[in-house]
């Protein structure tokens, strides 16, 4: 995959079409409540939230090379954090939302501290163990988390100001919330993008590629891994906070390992080597899930089969496969 050398050394062919696409998709997504049904908007909200969740995982998986089986813990902590703050303590959304992110990040810091001391399968198992501990606490701590009943009726944030704008007046709270979610998720993703492109992100990729070599160019691998773990946890928490509201309630199964598995499958489905891979995976998997569960109760079977096909035929995920296809087209065109 040798690219032709550019005139200036090291200039990556920064394809000019990349920047407008993201903006265009964002603008198109904004129009969804007007052009689609309430159900479409509902799906769109879910996809946006999962996209953020998956992208936070990819900071670990695709960028740093850390395999976490317990990422749902931070999603759940964010959900409970925001839900409890808003419902039980009547804290307004604009405070509860970032607070949930910080709480989740704090847990990421504490759990991560122990996890980064281990490698590979041990690391993965400890992340899983911590996540299940969190689940068990959420499931049992009736007073605070509602136990196995969960925390129903988490209130929506006050969006009356938005609803009063011309053109927005016919929207219900669910649709207004969609706009909020879209904007917040977009901001978070933009931050993640910046992070990935920054020197910090570059160092993370060296850890993914070769942790031993990274040490010998001066990288304190554990410290960076911990930082990545904390940040990923924080963003997962933010997505969880949004989900708790969207779902009209927070429940312990947000933290269950199957959720960690789901988000991982999403990430891999889209392609872990591309920044937008997880978002694509979230979109595809959510839509597939909606479609297929309408026809059959055997969604796990379908998911398992998709996963097998993915692993054997498209290890780079959807975007990886597109890459391969595009480069073949390019080669034919140039030949």
């Amino acid at each position, binding site marked *: 995959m040798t690219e032709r050398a550019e005139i200036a050394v090291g200039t990556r062919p920064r394809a000019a079409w990349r920047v407008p696409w993201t903006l265009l998709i964002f603008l198109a997504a904004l129009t969804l409540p007007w052009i689609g049904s309430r159900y479409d908007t509902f799906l769109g909200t879910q996809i946006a939230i999962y996209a953020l969740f998956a992208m936070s995982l990819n900071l670990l998986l695709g960028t740093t090379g850390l*395999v976490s089986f317990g990422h749902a813990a931070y999603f759940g902590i964010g959900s409970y954090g925001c839900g409890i703050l808003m419902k039980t303590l009547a804290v307004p959304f604009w405070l509860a939302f970032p607070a949930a992110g910080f709480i989740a990040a704090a847990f990421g810091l504490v759990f991560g501290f*122990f996890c980064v*001391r*281990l*490698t*590979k*399968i*041990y690391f*993965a*198992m*400890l992340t899983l*163990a*911590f996540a*299940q*501990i969190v*689940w*068990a*606490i959420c*499931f*049992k701590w009736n007073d605070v988390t509602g136990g196995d009943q969960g925390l129903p009726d988490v209130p929506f944030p006050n969006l009356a100001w938005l609803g009063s704008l011309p053109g927005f007046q016919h929207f219900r709270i669910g649709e207004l919330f969609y706009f909020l979610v879209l904007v917040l998720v977009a901001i978070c993703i933009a931050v993640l993008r910046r992070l990935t492109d920054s020197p910090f992100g570059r160092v993370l990729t060296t850890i993914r590629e070769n942790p031993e070599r990274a040490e010998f160019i001066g990288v304190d691998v554990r410290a960076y891994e911990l930082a990545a773990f904390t940040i990923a946890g924080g963003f997962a928490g933010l997505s969880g906070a949004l989900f708790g509201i969207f779902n009209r309630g927070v429940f312990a199964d947000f933290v269950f390992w199957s959720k960690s*598995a789901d988000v*991982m*499958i999403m990430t*891999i489905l889209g392609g872990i080597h591309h920044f937008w891979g997880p978002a694509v995976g979230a979109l595809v998997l959510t839509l597939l899930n909606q479609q297929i569960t309408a026809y059959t109760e*055997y969604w*796990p*079977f379908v*998911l*398992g*089969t998709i*996963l*097998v096909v993915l*692993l*054997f035929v498209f*290890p780079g995920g959807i975007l990886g496969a597109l890459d391969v296809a595009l480069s073949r087209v390019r080669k034919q065109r140039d030949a």
Partner: protein
Amino acid sequence: MNPGFLFSQFMGGLTAAMFLFLIASGLSLVFGVMRVLNFAHGSFYMIGAYIAWQVVQWLQPSPERFWPAVLAAAFGVALLGAVVERLLFRFLYDREELYQLLFTYALVLILGDAAKFLWGTQQLSVSRPPVLAGGFELFGTMVPAYNLFIMLFGPLIALAVWLMLTRTTPGRMVRAAALDREMLGALGANVGTLYTGMFALASFLAGLSGALVTPIQSIVPGMDVEIIVQAFIVVVIGGLGSFWGTFLGSVIYGQVLSFGILIFPGFSLFSVFALMAVILILRPWGLLGRPLR
């Protein structure tokens, strides 16, 4: 707290331990050789249980239905394991571990639903074989004969597998493969067949324990997940890849389960994973594993 009660708890713990050992040994074996943690191992256990039930149904009028059913289950699952390994799994050996793990997870999803499709969701059960239907009075408590059988059978299997690993040529090759797969291949050993055989053996053990547990526990969807979690704990306690570590881990964990529930009713959910976390933090290589650092 009379001695009879304590003793019965102890026996219960040992029985649980032996079941756990049968399952976890397969898991440990696969990890030791192929360096992959097979999530689907619990699914094989469950399939073993379902096959045993099915065979018992088919042999309905005949009195000695249990033992053929157990054998059918064990060999059936072994076959399933061999097929899965040969046709699918082997192509992932060169890939990153994550992909191998995800494949086993995909199997969990697929096999779980397959079982649901074939056998439905209600609880099923199998009665004990008539020869082991009774019990013995020991230390003031009634110990079922079947449990005693399991408590003796478990270590026997352990010994058999261990002997196979250390005394026979295939066994030694397996251990060599764990250390350096390529080298072994270069030496002319058929590593592929070895792996298939290993996987089949592990699956055999899983199917066997699934079949054997049916008189004691009902067969329900979700038993695959429940058991794999416990198997994980056991191999972590004992040390990933260590055979006797798994045995020790099973014994310890069996007692922890048995007595822990008395002390702390909400026990299993939290403490199981807390235990795992503690071990991974303090001594990741478990009791008998090889130290990482």
